[in-house]
């Protein structure tokens, strides 16, 4: 590890000025959203909210102006993101498209693909999901079995994806599937495609989670016809393209701010005069958020410079996951209230909800085992 990976990176003035704009938007649009809905934040799906955010020019701000963006830098996106998350805004309807799909298309897509998809994303109208895991390939993506076979001008896709966030309410999936043999390279022979989820042969089955909610899905592809324009980037290079997205996926503030609503209700419950145990734990969480934010900003600076901070991003993700999974544990330790469902105080409800959601924090974006393996290899353990 080079500690320079985490050199201090202040937010430039230009990006900082966006903060007021986002806060003004949020104070208007979040007024009537109760804490238990805010608790959903990153998983909260609200198309009306996303469209308003798009109309306010706050989605896809790093995109070219010709597609509706502001051509702003990574820090500008950072400021917008953290303000949305800190407020518990329901961002799920546009988040993945904004964070991953639009940058991927801008980087690897054809001009036609960019024209077709990016403006809708920027307007907050188009919802994307990412198809990675399969029933027999959870953490082990090299064993993906969904396969697209060339036929005439296009491809025919068969297979299954699972644990796909938001597939049941997305228009498109960007999926990693097999298009050839991998040869010696376990990760070879894979390609990325945009799939219209309304196309014949696609079946989306929501998976009910333990809290009773539906965020994840199983998706079946039966002879789904894909035209030549569906391929993103280079055939057989899907794995490398996916890896390039990872730093975006793993380093953002959603990795340590998606449970902020619980910190809010906890502080409210504890009141202005915490006892020594409460002060310690609330302060400890606060300090770790501050430190993680410094790391996250440092990764943002590298992304802004076009660097490859995959290792550093995985580091942010792993620490952030630990913090977010700890937060409900600490909240229950410090509060007299018991977790409650469909009853009880705001804090009790948010506590119950995030306690139940917490196990999923280490599912999204790589399990802790996978991440720590990546970190260890990056450290030069042979």
């Amino acid at each position, binding site marked *: 590890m080079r500690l320079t990976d985490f050199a201090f990176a202040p937010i430039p003035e230009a990006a900082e000025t966006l903060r007021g704009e986002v806060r003004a938007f949020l104070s208007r649009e979040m007024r009537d959203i109760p804490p238990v809905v805010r608790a959903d934040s990153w998983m909260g799906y609200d198309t009306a909210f996303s469209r308003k955010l798009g109309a306010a020019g706050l989605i896809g701000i790093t995109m070219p102006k010709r597609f509706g963006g502001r051509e702003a830098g990574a820090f500008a996106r950072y400021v917008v993101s953290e303000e949305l998350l800190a407020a518990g805004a329901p961002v799920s309807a546009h988040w993945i498209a904004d964070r991953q799909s639009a940058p991927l298309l801008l980087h690897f897509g054809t001009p036609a693909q960019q024209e077709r998809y990016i403006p809708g994303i920027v307007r907050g109208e188009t919802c994307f999901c990412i198809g990675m895991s399969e029933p027999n390939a959870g953490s082990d993506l090299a064993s993906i079995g969904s396969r697209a076979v060339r036929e005439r001008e296009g491809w025919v896709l068969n297979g299954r994806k699972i644990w796909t966030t938001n597939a049941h309410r997305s228009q498109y999936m960007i999926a990693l599937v097999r298009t050839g043999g991998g040869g010696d390279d376990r990760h070879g022979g894979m390609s990325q495609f945009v799939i219209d989820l309304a196309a014949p042969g696609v079946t989306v089955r929501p998976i*009910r989670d*333990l809290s*009773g909610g539906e965020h994840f899905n199983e998706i079946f592809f039966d002879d789904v016809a894909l035209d030549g324009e569906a391929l993103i980037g280079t055939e057989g290079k899907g794995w490398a393209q996916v890896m390039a997205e990872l730093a975006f996926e793993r380093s953002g503030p959603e990795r340590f701010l998606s449970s902020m609503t619980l910190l809010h209700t906890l502080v409210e419950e504890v009141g202005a005069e915490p006892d020594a145990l409460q002060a310690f734990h609330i302060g400890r969480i606060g300090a770790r958020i501050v430190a993680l934010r410094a790391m996250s900003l440092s990764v943002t600076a590298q992304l802004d410079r076009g660097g490859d901070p995959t290792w550093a991003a995985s580091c942010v993700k792993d620490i952030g996951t630990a913090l977010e999974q700890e937060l409900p544990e600490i909240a*229950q330790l410090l509060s007299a209230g018991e977790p409650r469902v469909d009853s009880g105080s705001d804090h009790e409800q948010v506590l*119950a909800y995030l*306690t*139940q959601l917490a*196990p999923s924090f280490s599912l999204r974006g790589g399990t802790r*085992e996978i991440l720590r393996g990546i970190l260890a290899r990056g450290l030069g353990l042979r």
Partner: protein
Amino acid sequence: MRDMFEETAERVLGDLVTPETLVAAESGAWPEALWSAVEENGLGLAAAPEALGGVGGSWHDAFVLVRAAGRHAAPVPLAETILVNWLLGLAGLDAAPGAATLAVGPGRLVDDVFSGTLADVPWGGQAGHVLTRSEDSFVLLSCADAKSTAALNTAREPRDTLVFAEARPVAAAPVPVHFPPDALLLGGAMIRSAQIAGGLGRLLDTAIDYANQRVQFGRPIGKFQAIQHQLAVLAEQTALASAAAEMAFASSARGPCPEAIAAAKSVASEAAGQGAAIAHAVLGAIGFTYEHVLHFTTRRLWSWRSEFGSQAVWAQDIGRRLCRQGESGLWAAIIATAPASASKG
């Protein structure tokens, strides 16, 4: 009697607490068949004296029943009923018919009628009777006499509020003089400790089975050192919680033992959180689905650890006591928590 209790509980609960029963109970259905079997087998009366309508088992023997109730996530107030009937017995009162529960308070018995708002009452809206306290008296009330407001814990188990206005008790008697002032809170904490130990045992079995079956990167995930170490810690936490909970029961033969129960509930509550986290980490995505049974246990652990005092409440209780003793009395205070010569009653 311990073995008989354990066998009966495993048979009755093993057969009747199915995923379907659990799902139905979450929507508010009372599991009639399950509760009938519990009554037929006298499980709720295990620790009440025979002279007062009970089975006459010792409180220590009842531990395995309460742990089994936790292990099977039984969606009925079995643990509460066992506790209430034991306490009634110690106070010289007849066992309560049917399902019973308890309420820490506050409420007051004045001129033979009881008034008060009792919050967080397990199955308050469905149980027949609730045991509470008014100053120096235990008071047994009929739940039907209360106005009930529904509330649910993380596992959607009822934790209702009962409002009594000048209700006539079913029975009342002085709290035994050697009882600690917070005997009901302690009793609740004690049964939750045992239930947590049972729930952790279930998590451990589930996680081991899964780890032996699920293949990733070409081998069962149970072969990976990281998974093995996590399961070792889960086993340790289960053992610690169970040992502490049983010690609390063994120490409470004549009434709730504050020191042992504080230790048990604080250890079990910490273990509950760690254990649930490990089980979910091992099972990954499948364990996060409603379809898999794991959550019937983990969602209960997430609530039970908070009920009748969290880890912090009880740990601080112990910590204050140890600091009051000071350095010279520290060791004596620690071993006083576990009675040397078994149950005295």
